[in-house]
């Protein structure tokens, strides 16, 4: 009984340690989907801001919220480990995550005249992330 309990504990610890930060294709695909969503929403927001449809407060606050989500995804992608076959995709997604984060910063901080360009960059990033995400499924 005692041996069984110790065995179970060791198994749990090993499984837990082995799984720490490891992403399989499905988990990576989920991260790609979440990042693509944030980038696409940022693009829409930036285009609206450039067209004078938004208020400064709303675009600043909402882009900050999106930026927080993008930064979190980028950080978890950077920290994660994957199988060797998936690692190039993980790294490319992490880089795109960092780019999306910095573009979203621009919506809040840069002059309004830059919004259209930022929106285009975010839209391009969203498409690249989508392509990478599709390659995983």
């Amino acid at each position, binding site marked *: 009984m005692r041996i069984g309990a110790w065995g179970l504990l060791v198994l749990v610890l090993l499984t837990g340690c082995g799984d720490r930060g490891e992403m399989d294709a499905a988990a990576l695909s*989920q991260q790609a*989907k*979440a990042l*693509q*969503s944030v980038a*696409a*929403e940022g*693009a*829409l*927001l930036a285009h*609206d801001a450039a067209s*004078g*449809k*938004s*208020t400064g*407060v*709303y675009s*600043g*606050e*909402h882009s900050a*919220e*999106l930026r927080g*989500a993008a930064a979190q995804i980028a950080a978890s992608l950077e920290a994660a480990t994957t199988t060797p076959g998936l690692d190039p995709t993980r790294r490319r997604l992490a880089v795109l995550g960092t780019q999306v984060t910095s573009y979203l910063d621009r919506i809040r901080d840069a002059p309004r005249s830059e919004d259209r360009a930022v929106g285009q960059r975010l839209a391009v990033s*969203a498409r690249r992330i*989508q392509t990478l995400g599709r390659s995983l499924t």
Partner: protein
Amino acid sequence: MKNVLAVALGILSAIGGFVDIGDLVFNTQAGAIFGFQLLWVVVVGVVGIIVYSEMCGRVSAVAKRPVFDLVRERTGFGAGLMTLVASEVVSLMTCAAEVGGVAICLQLLSGLPYRFLILVAISGLVLCSWILPFDWIERIFGYLGLGLLVFAVAAIKLHPDWGEVGRGFVPGAHSGGSLMVYLYFVVGLLGAAMTPYEVYFYSSGAVEDGWGVRDLGLNKVTTMIGYGLGGLLSLALMIVAAVLFLPRGISPEFLGTPPLAAEHVLGQVGLLLALVGILFAVGGAAIETSFSGAYNLAQFFGWKWGKKERPAGAARFTLTWIAMFGLAMAVVMTGYDPVKLTEYSVIFSVVALPLTYLPILLVANDPSYMGTNVNGRLANTLGILYFAIILAISISAIPLMLLTHGGQG
């Protein structure tokens, strides 16, 4: 003429007060994932809330008894206590989510820090609840919640494929997400439409307003037209998300996302109307949930209760709704995401639904309470049908939430 005006005003406030944070979250997410395919669920949910609200309004008017009074009497102390605990937890979670929603709206309007705005929101809500009479609370929050009509305008201006929209009202095969996620959203949308606090608040309000048999017509009209038209706002939110968010792959995870649709279609005026509409719809729901928590506790333990009582005259009732706000503030101050909290509160409220709706169905059928105003054939058929639906979704809600990781797939 005066009566017609009163009915019209009641309907308007019911429309504005129909949508809460649960409807906003689930309808936009469902539209962004499944397009128009889940429109039929909104109709099913709206008919369900009409059936049971009409029933509990009638019970309150005829038997002069609110829902929780009946829950304890009909289910006994043990089951009643279980329902009470479940309802209080769900009311608190919902109240916290709504308070968080108010703070987010204020932040999107002002740019001030979130935690400071939680304090502002709580102070404003407690002040309104303390000083305003019942009908004023209902009207102010209901009328200003009508800003949400901007989503109906946006839905039309986005020129959806109306043929596709029409097909969405017929349940059928789905695409765009897995079957489990589809079922999770069916449960979530029904839960968001038939949330129990609305019934507690509605029936307690009817008792407070001193409804009698003469008000049965008003009860029918308010529930049918008010909730029916309010349901159109839920449909509009789903249509807008289906047209604007789905093709772009946007999955709305923030309360700031739905106003983006109004902004995109109608510019700054649309954005401001959407934010003000959400602010007051969610604020009104925060007051309703805090009062529901106080109503339930007071009615279960037989305390003196009612907004019409002086606060000192119903001290335990007053302390309970203030405590609900205090606890809700403590929850959102932790920084927990109000949207995630909403998803959990809706799913957990689904679990408590049968224990809320069964006593209403039983009493509405009992001639010793209702005399000649017992359920007719239609009310009974729909009541039993909906109880079966409620039972099915309450059993499947938590397994679906776990299997789909909260709708993430």
